[in-house]
């Protein structure tokens, strides 16, 4: 097992200072060791795609970064600050880290526009008018402005996920986490969400993306992180990872994914 150390400079001109740093992270679910010795550094402006078989810990890894999952050992820093364990400090940090879920999790009782504006108004104290103007701009950007007054359940899955992305963007996050954003979508809706994500990456958003969309990883990622049974097994630029994976586990995984 080779563990290639992260090289942000490989990402070229887009790489900035380290924004997310995980050092020596360990996590257990009961007897199950789900995250083992995780070392990962993501630079500002970088797009990191996390790949791996199901149960490899990639979603858990993603969720530890805004502390939806706690860790047993190690350190996580966001923009140099150690992750607060609770209280107002943690809430503040979470407001700066966007999160997009597999199951969208739009607030079911609020309209699309309210979904976007509620956090800026209540958490950041932005005046309602301003939040609504920004909200409409964001909905425009993700292509669902015409659905602003509908409830989430009236939208297709692809539209809901685009709204969820806009909701995160409304908080102007420093980094965005995507936890299998397209896994609950019909095939024809995947592309509309991927398109929005590709746009974000082009605009320089720092992104950590857990996905099974190999096309997105290949085209958009600066680095691919491959995980297996709780461990980061390979960290490499996508072209190298896909053309010549170094570990047997990654070869096996890619073989299964790409040949069916």
């Amino acid at each position: 097992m080779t563990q290639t150390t992260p090289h942000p400079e490989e990402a070229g001109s887009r790489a900035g200072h380290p924004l997310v740093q995980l050092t020596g992270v360990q996590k257990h679910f009961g007897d199950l060791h789900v995250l083992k010795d995780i070392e990962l550094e993501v630079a500002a402006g970088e797009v990191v795609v996390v790949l791996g078989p199901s149960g490899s810990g990639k979603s858990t890894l993603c969720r530890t970064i805004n502390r939806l999952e706690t860790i047993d050992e190690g350190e996580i820093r966001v923009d140099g600050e150690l992750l607060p364990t609770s209280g107002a400090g943690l809430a503040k940090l979470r407001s700066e880290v966007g999160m997009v879920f597999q199951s969208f999790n739009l607030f079911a009782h609020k309209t699309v526009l309210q979904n976007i504006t509620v956090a800026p108004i209540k958490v950041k104290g932005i005046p309602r008018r301003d939040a609504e103007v920004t909200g409409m701009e964001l909905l425009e950007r993700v292509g669902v402005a015409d659905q602003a007054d509908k409830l989430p359940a009236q939208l297709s899955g692809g539209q809901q996920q685009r709204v969820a992305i806009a909701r995160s963007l409304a908080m102007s996050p420093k980094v965005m986490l995507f936890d299998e954003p397209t896994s609950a979508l019909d095939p024809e809706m995947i592309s509309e969400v991927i398109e929005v994500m590709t746009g974000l990456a082009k605009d320089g958003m720092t992104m950590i993306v857990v996905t099974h969309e190999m096309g997105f990883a290949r085209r958009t990622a600066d680095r691919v992180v491959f995980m297996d049974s709780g461990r980061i097994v390979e960290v490499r630029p996508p072209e190298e990872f896909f053309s010549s994976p170094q570990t047997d586990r990654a070869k096996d995984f890619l073989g299964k994914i790409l040949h069916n």
Partner: protein
Amino acid sequence: MDTFLIERDMLWTAFSTTLTLAAISGAISLVLGTLIAALRVSPYAPLRALATAYTEFLRNTPLTIVFFFYVFVTPSMGFTFDYKVAAVIALSCYTSAFVAEAVRSGINSVTVGQAEAARSLGMSFSQNLSIVVLPQAFRTAIPPLISVFIALVKNTSVAGAFGVFELFALSKRLTNVYSADVIAILVGVALCYLLLCIPLGQLAGHLERKVAFAR
């Protein structure tokens, strides 16, 4: 039924007392019960334990004993309440435990993802609860809550045994005076309770339709 016509002033006094007891206790127990339910899901274990103890204690104590406590025990400790006030306190405390459980069942029906989304947007626990979770929880909690409030309306009759002149006390007084009309009097009083409770059931249906939303 002539009895009621003769004693219509007394009937009205009793009816409005029952209504007042139910309405005030209902409002207080809704607020108190929601607070208790919120404590039940709080991140702080001591608060959760406190709320659990409160709920289990009041829910498993006969209402008559709760009344007994506020009417006879607290005065001996130096707190004397008017009978009506004591009745409102007893009914509110007792009912709030059931409200708390109904609201908690509503909270549990809201998917974890809703609260996770709220947390990851930087909302505090209280914002999460008041903006995201409770509004959705109440929608699911309407049918059990209405059952709780219907029980409350009927439970006000216990106050009749503790110095409050409401519908049950009225039936006692009238059956003493007009002993030939016992059946008519009891049927009449029962109808008064129906008059209060049936609209509550209707209200439940109306509210459910009004706040219905697809998940």
